[in-house]
């Protein structure tokens, strides 16, 4: 008997489309028939309503069968179920209205039915495909929300469950064990659910990973029915497995920090790998996002002939990097050639270049520029100001130049500038706060590094004298 119910339930995803199609068709007929030209269609109305209603009833039965053996979110099931039942009832009601010649109500019936069908369908879709399926990946904002792993600047300070374990569960388990689906009546998306367990009982035994199905099932042979995540789904990595193991064996705490649990030495490297201390991740885009056509090959060859190292940034990109390392004097020919390909140039290296105003103006016309290295040059504050229109610029290296703080602050239009190298200039570390007012997101490197002098640096260790 149970298997027959199960089988009936499995027909639900197929069958639901009949009432949707037929009832929408009924509503369409209804709408059209108010038009003189399609008046005749009215004759089909009772039949379509009846068939639609009956198929809706059968859909409800199959749906109920499925909800009994499926592992779905009860809340969603409740909504979907009662909306569907109302669809069935109202469509039958529609048939009755026509039969008892109360067609005046029919207009309202059709309207309510239309809304109900869409709502029922939406919740049905949410049940099978998961929450937010409709808009997922459609809007750009959504894309960024997905996979936003917590930042862990210092793993010792991280809360083990929230920052390390939960993201693993989210990535590898939530697909079937969360608000979306509850396979095996198990949810893992909150502490209370994890502690509650599933239909086979508890999944977590604090302190004993090998007794906890939450961990043990990961170890099973991949062909085993109980192996988790199931065959074909993204598997738990070795690093994640060890983190889960340690989390459970250390007592499965939900609020302790890593350092409070005093991780054993063999967990250190695993924990280190989780750490992400790059600070707030500033996505450095190497090239502008806009596409660009290829640069004139003749111009490129001309520049090569002049000694400029000029090359596409990658085989699949038309953006160009230009290195003037062997050309300390860029003459007019070079300037003219660069002007012809200025939109393609994204990286320029001019270390030691001898600048004059016309040359700086040529640079200022390279509007795609993201990276500019003009260290060890004679560039002046006044000339630097000319570069204030390089809106794409992200990296600027002015190490060992005469640039002053005021000179740098003139570049207040360069909103994308996020990497600044200002060592050996007139700009000092004490200026950081002021620099941040213009470039709030920038990492500023002031150089001046020093390696401490230790006595042992030059000492030579000898064989200890035996007494």
């Amino acid at each position: 008997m149970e298997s027959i119910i199960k089988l009936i339930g499995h027909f639900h995803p197929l069958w639901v489309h009949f009432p949707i199609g037929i009832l929408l068709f009924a509503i369409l007929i209804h709408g059209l028939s108010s038009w003189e030209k399609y008046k005749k269609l009215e004759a089909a109305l009772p039949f379509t309503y009846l068939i639609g209603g009956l198929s809706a009833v059968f859909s409800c039965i199959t749906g109920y069968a499925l909800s009994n053996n499926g592992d779905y979110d009860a809340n969603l099931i409740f909504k979907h179920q009662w909306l569907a039942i109302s669809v069935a009832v109202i469509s039958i009601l529609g048939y009755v209205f026509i039969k008892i010649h109360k067609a005046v109500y029919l207009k309202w019936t059709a309207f309510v039915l239309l809304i109900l069908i869409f709502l029922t369908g939406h919740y049905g879709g949410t049940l099978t495909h998961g929450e937010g399926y409709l808009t997922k990946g459609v809007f750009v904002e959504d894309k960024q929300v997905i996979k936003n792993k917590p930042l862990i600047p210092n793993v010792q300070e991280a809360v083990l469950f929230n920052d390390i374990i939960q993201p693993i569960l989210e990535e590898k388990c939530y697909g079937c064990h969360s608000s979306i689906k509850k396979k095996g009546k198990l949810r893992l998306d909150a502490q209370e659910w994890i502690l509650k367990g599933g239909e086979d009982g508890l999944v977590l035994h604090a302190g004993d990973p090998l007794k906890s199905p939450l961990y043990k099932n990961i170890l099973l042979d991949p062909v085993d029915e109980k192996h988790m995540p199931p065959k074909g789904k993204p598997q738990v990595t070795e690093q994640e497995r060890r983190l889960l193991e340690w989390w459970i064996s250390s007592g499965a705490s939900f609020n302790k920090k890593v350092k409070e649990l005093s991780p054993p030495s063999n967990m250190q490297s695993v924990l280190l790998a989780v750490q992400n201390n790059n600070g707030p991740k500033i996505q450095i885009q190497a090239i502008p996002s806009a596409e660009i056509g290829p640069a004139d090959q003749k111009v490129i060859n001309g520049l090569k002939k002049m000694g400029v190292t000029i090359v596409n940034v990658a085989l699949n990109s038309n953006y160009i990097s230009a290195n003037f390392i062997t050309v300390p004097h860029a003459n007019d020919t070079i300037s003219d050639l660069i002007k012809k390909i200025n939109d393609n140039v994204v990286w320029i290296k001019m270390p030691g270049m001898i600048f004059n105003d016309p040359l700086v103006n040529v640079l200022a016309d390279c509007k795609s520029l993201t990276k500019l290295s003009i260290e060890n040059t004679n560039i002046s504050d006044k000339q630097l100001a000319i570069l204030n229109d390089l809106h794409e610029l992200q990296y600027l290296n002015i190490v060992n130049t005469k640039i002053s703080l005021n000179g740098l602050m003139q570049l207040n239009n360069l909103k994308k500038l996020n990497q600044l190298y200002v060592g050996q200039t007139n700009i000092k570390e004490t200026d950081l706060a002021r620099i941040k007012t213009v470039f709030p997101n920038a990492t500023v490197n002031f150089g001046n590094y020093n390696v401490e002098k230790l006595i042992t640096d030059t000492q030579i260790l000898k064989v200890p004298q035996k007494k």
Partner: protein
Amino acid sequence: MSKQNNKKIIQEANLETSHQITRKYFFKECFSGIGAMALGSMVGGCDWLGSKDSFGNFTNTNPLMAHAPHFIGKAKSVIYLHMAGAPSQLELFDYKPELLKLDGQDCPQSLLDGKKFAFIRGVPKMLGPQAVFKQRGQSGAWISDNLPHLSTVADEISFLKAVQTDQFNHGPAQLLMHTGSPRLGRPSIGAWVTYGLGTENSNLPGFVVLTSGGNNPDAGKSVWGNGFLPSVYQGVQCRSEGDPVLFLKDPAGIDRDLRKASIDAINEANQLTYNEFKDPEIVARMAQYEMAFKMQISVPDVMNINDEPAYIHEMYGTHPGKASFANNVLLARKLVEKGVRFVQLFDWGWDSHGTDVSNAVDIGLVNKCRTIDKPITALLLDLKQRGLLDETLVVWGGEFGRTPMQENRDGKTLPFKGRDHHTEAFTTWMAGGGIKQGSSFGETDEIGYSAISGKVTAYDMQATILNQLGFDHEKLVYPFQGRSFRLTDVHGRVINEIVA
């Protein structure tokens, strides 16, 4: 009689010429002969004598011209610091407190069964860590007191703690590390990179090698060789003491114009020969003449560390004129700054067997560490303050690791504490060039004998280095003897775990 004599002489001349004509030349002449014109044009159409490579980087005009990588790479150049002889991970980065407890005990038989060691015979004793370890920086990386300076920049580095190799002798292991094969004949990684990317500075070689420690690496110059790639891509080894490059001055009576004219004339003749034989080695020779001519101007400037400011010498611990690893490290920074693609440093003397004081893990090794600690730390910081660390990948490592057991060469107790060659687990690290800061990947068991997670091989390191430069290691290929070869052969996985 004279007629017959003439005939004889001509015959003899013909015979002589045919001896001199090479096999290749003979076949080529045959094909272009009138009788075989059809066949010749067919085969000739396949460019069967010329070098044809799928990446298309070898051009007969300028083989070192800069090229675009497959995708946008984070790194533009590489500094590879190889500690030849294999430094002991157990005294530097792989902290094993459990091993200390076992110090002096007999090695359990389970660790020896079915294993082969270079020198250990019978049952050796376990040897605890011969250094004091501390966790360093925010990342908490374990670094021993042997490297006090490097400890201050731990947060710049990504450690690979479970590197494995299958070669337990220096030569083959070094070859594997640098050429992707334990046997001779493959191009080194620097050669591959220069072949793929060319050079940023046409006045300098693309691939420079500097050695220190008094010896070349055991594998010889093949670790920076070009293998089957055109020889223009081989590493250029500079002298480590005195002038890095000799004969930079023109001889008396020869001015620069005359030298240029003579090189042009020679190259013109070479070009004619190339047109006929299509031997890429001729192009390599032409490029090298050109390079040598340019280097006469560029080298004295770049290769001279005397003019570096005092604070730089202080920082690196350099003493101009003396052969030292520190000097080489400073040179490496200068070269990379000038656009050299690949700089490889070999430092000899890390083979800590314990046969004498210079290779004792608690004495000689400490002294070796003191020679590299300051310069490497200075290198990372100096690159950083010049805005170059992001685009310069720094790699540090040896060719294998060392055993957690004390070496007992020929079953005897050695006069000093030492460790044998070990293939199953050792530590290397990378920094800069788009590598994660303050990270670690891979792990060994409680005594540092075997890798238990995050295992990587030389191929994986090579794939990662190429990846950082913008190459798909499976696509950087060169056709040779009928098939396309690549650095990682049929292996290699990019170690994404340490890529930022």
